[in-house]
Each structure stands twice: as structure tokens, then as C-alpha cells.
């Protein structure tokens, strides 16, 4: 497959040069510019969270606690979790790729509520700023889960500032979700029926439902922790008739589905990549679309699997265990269907596809260990060990971050009009895959052997696994830093990509790279099924210029 069009030229007018100066960015209502602003914000918080991760790994290089004080270590892993979960993993795909692509993919000029979209970004930055303020003032040591009664009664760190930061950021997610739902319902191009939507859009639709239905609950839970700290209401205080486990229910009612907020949009990215680089329609398109909704709905009913050792009723635990295993079904459907799409496809190994294949392997391991953890007896044994840490990193980093990198490399030429160097990008994909496995696979083993999470020292017999893990984290860090270098380089020196460097199908590939502010010259119409690589028929047109609209 040709990756560049040597004769292509950048368009004269595009969204990046329509309006100069900082104000034209900070006051923009263009979904594409807001996506770029999210890209900058998320990258910043990813760097912060990454520095925390490296501090954790350096501390765990030796069995003794010799780099950080124990209290500092508690703060470091808490801030790592808070920044990575709330300010990186949740927004990384929807707020960057979703924001940029959903209006274009459905043939619209912008999201339904452009000003609310900008407000979402400001709320995200204000929330992140407050959380950074908490970090600078000394941080918080409750773990990213803010469990009561420690967070509500005993912790002397900056719980309130962090909680308010996370609370405000929650509204950013809710507003983005509402914006996506309305846009997808109301602004699809003529002929673009629900089952002609790219699966990327289906993934975001399912995620938006979770954001709108779940986020208010965690906001309330965090607000209640604040009220408990300020006024000692006793909601989570057993000595006053309250119930600390209630907090875990409220927290996980959102925070487990939040994992699906993190992986459903990435799954949409993977569907696009697998189809484009196999030159085939996604196998079982409808069932893949339905499985996104299935995951969103079932994913809401499994939260109690975080609470098997919390004192939760055994009867409730059995129900949660069974439901958790059920959610593996729609997830497995997706993996099987992507694999079937590859079968007898014309597969090419461009950089985005390398990330997609990495995702398949990593998500498989993350998902299968999830089924293991759903089993009551096994979970009680490995609860709060590094086995769990490894599992959720395989799902969340192997899922969200790896697929984001795949999506970023796929749509980067669309976003900025230029290609990046192939060698360096493939090298970084390899480093991420090797580094990731070297970091987290040993954690499965050391966790199974009994090493608990959130301790700053450990018995000497666990050292070899921790040394491997720290070595892997160093490789992973290089794998993450490399794209930062060559993508920045490509902005000025990369080859001009042209409108469709991958020869891919989709409305976004019918417009110039970078796109104009208004995306389309007219109203696009859709006349055929998505991913119709085999017949190669022209399935898009512009209203007025095309006579037949199916």
C-alpha cells in the first residue's frame, strides 16, 4: 500500500490557519481545534502521571524502601492513579479522536453544541488544575479510589482539592457525552443510517451513554465524602449508623463502567484500523455494533466484583460474579470478529495496524485475566495483589493507550496533513509492545506469588520480578517518548499526506488534510455500506452533485 502521495500539496485554507493567535484557539468553537487542545492537555497529564509511574518503579527496584518515604510513596501512587484515570484514560480517545472525527464521520460541520464542547475543555483543564494544586500542596494518599472511612475521616492530605478537581472534571465528561449523543442522533448526513455508521461512532455512542448515566453517581459519592469531611455527617461512618461499604457501591457504580468508557472508543478505533489494513468490511458489523451497547449495559451491573472482600454479602457477590463473566461475551465477540476480519484479508503492517495487532494481544490477556478475577475464590486469593494491577493495566493501557496511539498514527495525516517517518514509528510500536509486556507480565507472576499492591517495600524473593518490571517500564517510557519527538518533527518536515494516504474508506478520507473549518463543501450523502473495500464502489457524494441517494 502506498503511504504517501508525493505530488500532494497542503490545502491553502484549513482549520489550523483559519484564525491566528492564542485567542483564536482559546475561544474556538471548532471541534477539531478543541480536539487539538485536548491532545495538549492529555499529553501534559500523561507526562505527569508517567513521571509518577517511573518513581514507583524506581522505588520498587530494590526490596527496601530507599528512594521515597512511605508516606510520599502513598502520595505518588495515588497521584499516578488520579491523573492517569481521570485526566488521561477517560478523555484520551473520546475527547481527542472522538471530538475530531465524529462530526466528520457523520458528515456534519461540527458537534451539536460547539460552545458546550469548549466548556467541556475548560472544565477538564480547571479540574486538572485543581488536582495539580493538590499535588503541589503535598498530594493525597487515599489511592485513586478514595475509599472511606480513610478518605472521609482519617487522611490528613489534600483530599478535598483533589476530589473537587475530579468532580469538576466529571462534568466535562457528562457534557461531552451529551454532545456526542445529540450529534449522532440528529446530525447524520442523508443516507447515513444507524447501521451505516462507522463502528468508531458506535463505540462513542455507547461510551456517551455510560458517561451521562454513570458520572453523576460518582460525583455525588465524591461530594458526600467532602460533606462527611466538612460536617461529619456519618454517611460512611459505621459508628454513627453509616456504612463505609456504601461508598464503594456508589464509587464503583461509575468507576467500573468507566473502564468501558476507556475501552469502548478504543474498540471503535480498532474496528476502523482492522478494516482499513485488511481491506475488508468488519466481519459481523451489526453484532460488533450491538456488542458495544451490550458491553455498556452489562458493564453497569458488575461493579460488585471490586468488593468481594469488602464485607459485601456473599449472595450479592455471587450475582456480581456471574454478571461479570457475562460481560466477557460481547467483549469476546469483538475480538473474534476482528480476528475473522483479518482472515483472508489483504493485511498490511503499517504503523497503525501494528498498534491494532498489539491491542488484540494485550486486550486478550487483560480480558481473560478479568474472567479469572471474576471467579470468587480466585479473586479472594489475589485481591489487592500485583495480579490485579497487571490485569487492569493490560485492559486500560493495553486497551486505551495502545489503541489511541494506533488511532493517532492513523488519523495524524488527516489532523495535520503530514506523514511521520515510518521506521521510527514502527520502532516505537515495537518498543511499546515489548516494554509493556516486560513491565506488566512479571506483575501477574509476582502478584500470584503474593506481593500486595500499594506497599513501598517487599520481601527480597520478589526482587527479580520487580527488576524486570522496572526495566520494562524504561523501555515503555522510550516507546512513549519517541512518538512525541517524531510527530512534532513531522508537523514541519513530514511528507505531505494528501487527503487519503491509506486508501481508506470513510467520510473523513474524502476531504482535504487538514480539513477546512467547515469540514465539507456541501452536504455529503452516503449511498452504501461502511467498509465496502471489496466492491470498491464510491459510496459517498455531495448533495446536489449526486442524483441517487439510497
Amino acid at each position: 500500500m502506498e503511504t504517501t502521495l508525493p505530488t500532494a500539496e497542503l490545502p491553502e485554507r484549513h482549520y489550523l490557519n483559519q484564525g491566528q493567535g492564542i485567542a483564536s484557539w482559546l475561544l474556538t468553537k471548532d471541534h477539531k481545534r478543541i480536539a487539538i487542545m485536548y491532545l495538549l492537555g492529555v499529553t501534559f497529564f500523561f507526562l505527569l502521571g508517567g513521571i509518577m509511574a517511573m518513581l514507583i518503579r524506581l522505588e520498587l527496584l530494590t526490596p527496601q524502601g530507599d528512594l521515597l518515604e512511605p508516606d510520599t510513596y502513598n502520595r505518588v501512587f495515588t497521584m499516578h492513579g488520579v491523573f492517569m484515570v481521570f485526566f488521561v484514560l477517560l478523555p484520551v480517545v473520546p475527547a481527542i479522536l472522538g471530538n475530531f472525527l465524529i462530526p466528520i464521520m457523520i458528515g456534519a460541520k461540527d458537534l451539536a453544541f460547539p460552545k458546550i464542547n469548549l466548556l467541556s475543555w475548560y472544565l477538564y483543564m480547571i479540574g486538572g488544575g485543581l488536582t495539580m494544586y493538590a499535588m503541589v500542596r503535598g498530594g493525597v494518599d487515599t489511592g485513586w479510589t478514595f475509599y472511606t472511612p480513610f478518605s472521609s475521616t482519617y487522611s490528613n492530605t489534600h483530599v478535598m482539592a483533589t476530589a473537587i478537581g475530579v468532580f469538576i472534571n466529571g462534568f466535562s465528561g457528562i457534557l461531552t457525552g451529551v454532545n456526542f449523543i445529540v450529534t449522532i442522533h440528529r446530525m447524520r448526513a442523508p443516507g447515513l443510517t444507524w447501521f451505516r455508521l462507522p463502528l468508531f461512532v458506535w463505540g462513542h455512542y455507547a461510551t456517551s451513554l455510560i458517561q451521562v448515566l454513570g458520572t453523576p453517581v460518582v460525583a455525588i459519592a465524591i461530594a458526600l465524602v467532602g460533606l462527611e469531611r466538612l460536617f461529619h455527617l456519618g454517611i460512611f461512618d459505621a459508628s454513627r449508623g453509616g456504612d463505609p461499604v456504601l461508598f464503594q457501591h456508589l464509587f464503583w457504580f461509575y468507576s467500573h463502567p468507566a473502564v468501558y468508557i476507556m475501552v469502548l472508543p478504543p474498540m471503535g478505533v480498532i474496528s476502523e484500523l482492522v478494516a482499513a489494513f485488511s481491506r475488508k468490511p468488519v466481519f459481523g458489523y451489526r453484532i460488533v455494533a450491538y456488542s458495544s451497547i451490550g458491553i455498556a449495559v452489562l458493564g453497569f451491573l458488575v461493579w460488585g466484583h471490586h468488593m468481594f472482600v469488602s464485607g459485601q454479602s456473599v449472595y450479592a457477590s455471587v450475582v456480581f460474579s456471574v454478571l461479570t463473566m457475562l460481560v466477557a461475551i460481547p467483549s469476546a465477540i469483538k475480538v473474534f470478529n476482528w480476528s475473522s476480519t483479518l482472515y483472508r484479508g489483504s493485511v498490511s503492517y503499517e504503523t497503525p495496524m501494528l498498534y491494532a495487532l498489539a491491542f488484540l494481544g494485550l486486550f486478550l490477556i487483560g480480558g481473560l485475566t478479568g474472567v479469572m478475577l471474576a471467579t470468587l475464590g480466585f479473586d479472594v486469593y489475589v485481591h489487592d495483589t500485583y495480579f490485579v494491577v497487571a490485569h487492569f493495566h493490560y485492559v486500560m493501557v493495553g486497551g486505551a493507550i495502545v489503541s489511541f496511539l494506533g488511532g493517532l498514527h492513523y488519523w495524524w495525516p488527516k489532523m495535520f496533513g503530514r506523514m511521520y517517518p515510518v521506521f521510527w514509528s514502527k520502532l516505537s510500536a515495537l518498543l511499546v509492545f515489548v516494554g509493556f509486556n516486560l513491565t506488566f507480565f512479571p506483575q501477574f507472576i509476582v502478584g500470584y506469588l503474593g506481593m500486595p499492591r500499594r506497599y513501598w517495600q517487599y520481601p527480597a524473593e520478589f526482587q527479580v520480578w520487580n527488576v524486570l518490571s522496572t526495566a520494562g517500564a524504561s523501555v515503555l517510557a522510550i516507546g512513549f517518548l519517541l512518538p512525541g519527538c517524531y510527530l512534532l518533527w513531522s508537523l514541519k518536515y513530514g511528507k505531505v499526506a494528501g487527503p487519503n494516504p491509506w486508501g481508506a474508506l470513510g467520510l473523513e478520507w474524502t476531504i482535504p488534510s487538514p480539513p477546512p473549518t467547515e469540514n465539507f463543501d456541501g452536504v455529503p450523502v452516503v449511498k452504501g455500506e461502511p467498509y465496502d473495500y471489496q466492491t470498491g464502489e464510491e459510496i459517498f457524494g455531495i448533495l446536489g452533485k449526486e442524483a441517487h441517494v439510497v
Partner: protein
Amino acid sequence: MSVHVSPLRVYVGVFLALMVLTAITVGVAFVDLGPLNNVVALGIAVTKATLVVLFFMHVAHSSRLIKLSVVSSIFWLFLLFVFILADDLTRGLLGVAGK
């Protein structure tokens, strides 16, 4: 889409009903109704929330799509309550080993 405008007396009526129900909530707090304490308090709260949603938030006169959205949100809340109660009401039914 036409916008339904309710007469002022509807809003005043709903406001007065909310005030009366608030007064009843405060009053009932001083009376021990035994197991009915929570039932009465929650009953009044649900009635008040329903009035606000139907009239102040205009759901009573909105399209079926809006009504469906409201009902599905309440169903989600129902799921939250059901599963929490499934834990809370069955804790301790099974004895703890060694005790």
C-alpha cells in the same frame, strides 16, 4: 416543535405543594413511626421530586423521547438501588466461619 407554556397558577400551586410537603417532612421527623420512618420520608421526597420533574422541568408536556430519557434514567437509578439492597439486605444471612 411547539413549546407548552403552563399558566402561572400551576407553578404557584406546585411551589406551595413543595412547601407543604417540606413542612410535613420536618414535622414527621419529630414523630417516631418505627419502621415507617424511612418509608414516609422517602415517599414525600419522591413525590416532591416527581412534581419538580413534571412541572418545573416541563417533562409533563414534553415529547415522548424526553419522557423515555427520564424513565430510563430512573430505571438506572433503580438498578443502583436494587443491587445495593441485594448486598445490604442479605449481609449476615450466611454465618461467618469461626464465629
